[in-house]
């Protein structure tokens, strides 16, 4: 059976949902004739027509606002941000309209806002950002970040079927680097459920997105060179967080390292550390440590970006420090 790339998995997920549900449509910049900047929507215009694959002006507020209006009237819009960095232009519509409608007046807004996030491709400050925490801090939204092709497909389907607005962060570094065999039959990956990618009893690394692979490589080295068995948990959803999975990992290993590509201050690692502190402090054998990007914009030049991004070596260094407790 053929292997499916991460980006193709997203495309398949959207395609299948559009085939099975007439309410689903996609709107964004260059999603039609061009098939999307990363070809996520390739072929959709021909298949579904221009009423369901809508090329919009460069107007992120209009894209998201229009999606909200359509969702209020029973549609299932998917709003594409060409690069997730541009989601800042739609911040107000997302955080004030989409996120609060249900709470304020009971009007659910079932919609997906998706786009390529993350660095590692020398995109510079405006094509490499990790905007998750702007939205994780907004009650009413859900935020997911798949790391595998299986999850990419299962989570986009879950997001489209969800009754609430979902921010779907696809990591552009993984688009064509990650591939796997996918089931033929329909499936979803539930939002809010983490996955254990590697079992271990000595140390836990909690991560998501492209950093999953750096964490897995580091875990292999730790096992091989030091006999340290590392549990690697892929969070998959950042809002809601899978608290049980986080607490289980902490209880099981007593040592937790959180790794993310997002910058440090106000990153999800701080929140996870606080949850562990409050709820399972007595199980800990050491402090919850963080490996994150530093508090700078994402730089462009290769040596700068390499310095900025977490990687296997940085994870190894922190893991060894933690293992020594």
């Amino acid at each position, binding site marked *: 059976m053929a292997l499916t790339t991460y980006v193709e998995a997203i495309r398949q997920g959207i395609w299948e949902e559009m085939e099975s549900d007439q309410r689903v449509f996609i709107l964004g910049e260059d999603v039609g004739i061009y098939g999307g900047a990363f070809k996520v929507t390739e072929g959709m215009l021909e298949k579904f027509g221009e009423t369901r694959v*809508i090329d919009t002006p460069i107007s992120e507020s*209009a*894209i998201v*606002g229009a999606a909200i209006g359509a969702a209020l009237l029973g549609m299932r819009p998917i709003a594409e941000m060409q690069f997730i960095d541009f989601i800042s232009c739609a911040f107000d*519509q997302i955080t*004030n309209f989409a996120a609060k409608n*249900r709470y*304020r*007046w*009971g009007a659910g807004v079932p919609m997906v806002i998706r786009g390529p996030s993350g660095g590692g491709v020398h995109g510079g400050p405006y094509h490499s950002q990790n905007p998750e925490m702007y939205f994780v801090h907004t009650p009413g939204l859900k935020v997911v970040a798949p790391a595998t092709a299986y999850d990419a497909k299962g989570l986009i389907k879950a997001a489209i079927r969800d009754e609430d607005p979902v921010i779907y962060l696809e990591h552009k570094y993984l688009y064509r680097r990650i591939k796997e065999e996918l089931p033929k039959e329909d499936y979803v990956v539930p939002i809010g459920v983490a996955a254990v990618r590697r079992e271990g009893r000595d140390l836990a690394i909690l991560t998501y997105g492209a950093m999953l692979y750096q964490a897995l490589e580091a875990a292999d080295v730790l096992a091989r060179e030091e006999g340290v068995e590392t549990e690697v948990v892929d969070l998959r959803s950042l809002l809601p967080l899978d608290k049980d999975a986080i607490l289980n990992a902490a209880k099981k290993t007593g040592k937790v390292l959180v790794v993310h590509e997002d910058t440090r201050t106000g990153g999800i690692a701080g929140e996870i550390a606080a949850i562990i502190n409050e709820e399972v402090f007595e199980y800990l054998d050491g402090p919850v440590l963080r490996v994150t990007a530093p508090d700078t914009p994402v730089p462009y030049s290769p040596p700068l970006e390499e310095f900025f991004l977490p990687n296997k070596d940085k994870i190894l260094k922190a893991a060894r420090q933690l293992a020594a407790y």
Partner: protein
Amino acid sequence: MPRVEGTTLPASRLEDEDMPAPDDALLLRMLHSMKLTRALEYRIERKLYRQGKIVGGVYVGRGQEAISVGAAVHIRRGEGEDRDDIVSPSHRDMAVFLMQGVPPERILAQYMGRSTGLTRGRDGNMHMGDLRHRIVAFISHLGDSIPVAAGCALTFAMRGTDQVSFCFFGEGATSRGDWHEGLNFAAVRRLPVVFICNNNQYAYSTHVSRQMRVGRVSDRAVGYGIPGETADGNDLLAVYGRVGRAVGRARRGEGPSLLEFVTFRMTGHSAHDDAGYVPKAEFEAWGRKDPIERLQSALLRRGLVDRPALAEMEARIESELDEAVAWAERQPYPEPEECLEGVYDEGGPGAGGGPQGESEAWR
């Protein structure tokens, strides 16, 4: 460079089209709506707020009633989901809520933060909506409703119905980027939206001359290639006719229109604002153009109504509002723990948790 049909049209006026005129029964109904709106707002602003029974912001549209009434009367409703129009009112469009069938007592409960208000106490004053009444809630961020209203219209276009999205806003909102993005989006896709600007000349304390360099909000339509028109917002018939034409255009698939109705805010921005920055002469001049007085005089002159009938109409409104206020005051506050409910879908039909997912009992 190849031209795409419909994208190079200059902005046009609607003046060559016939304006619809209301019949006598409709005129009387609109007079009633204007009077009910003003009376309800009077209770809210001059009585309940001053009595401390309403906390937070209170925004009224006194002097501007002709715009929301003359427009809202065109909103089609009661004919089913694939026939009913949708409306995004602004915070000075009380009449829209009443005309869409929201009972005054529910509005009063909303203002008083009671559990039977449209938002069950989660939000206050005019920040309310109800899809059963085909009303999309307004939010404080001016201009944000415009792309959302365009999205509602997009849905109608996708479904191939002749439904129309009505979108109200003030002149101040037209300075926001969202306003321009929404208008442009609707224009490019020729969506069935009627954009209705209530130009009351003040955004809080900022006069329109400090808000924009263009003389008329409707001039902004030129930039989007859609018809724009300005008319007297205190003249109910002018509003009725122009909105009627724009609705006709929208229903025929001819795209959006931008209508500007010039009026005056006969109060401060909100109940706590004495509007000391507004020259007294302006209040006096616009007071003489009061839209309710104007319509009433015209109807009296035409013999469509007489003084005793007007007195009876007013008395009925007052007694209805007496009952509505009493009902609202009897309503319970929400339970504190309800604060935690309804952030997300909690399952069940109608998407539980929020006000719309509740049983009929609280309606």
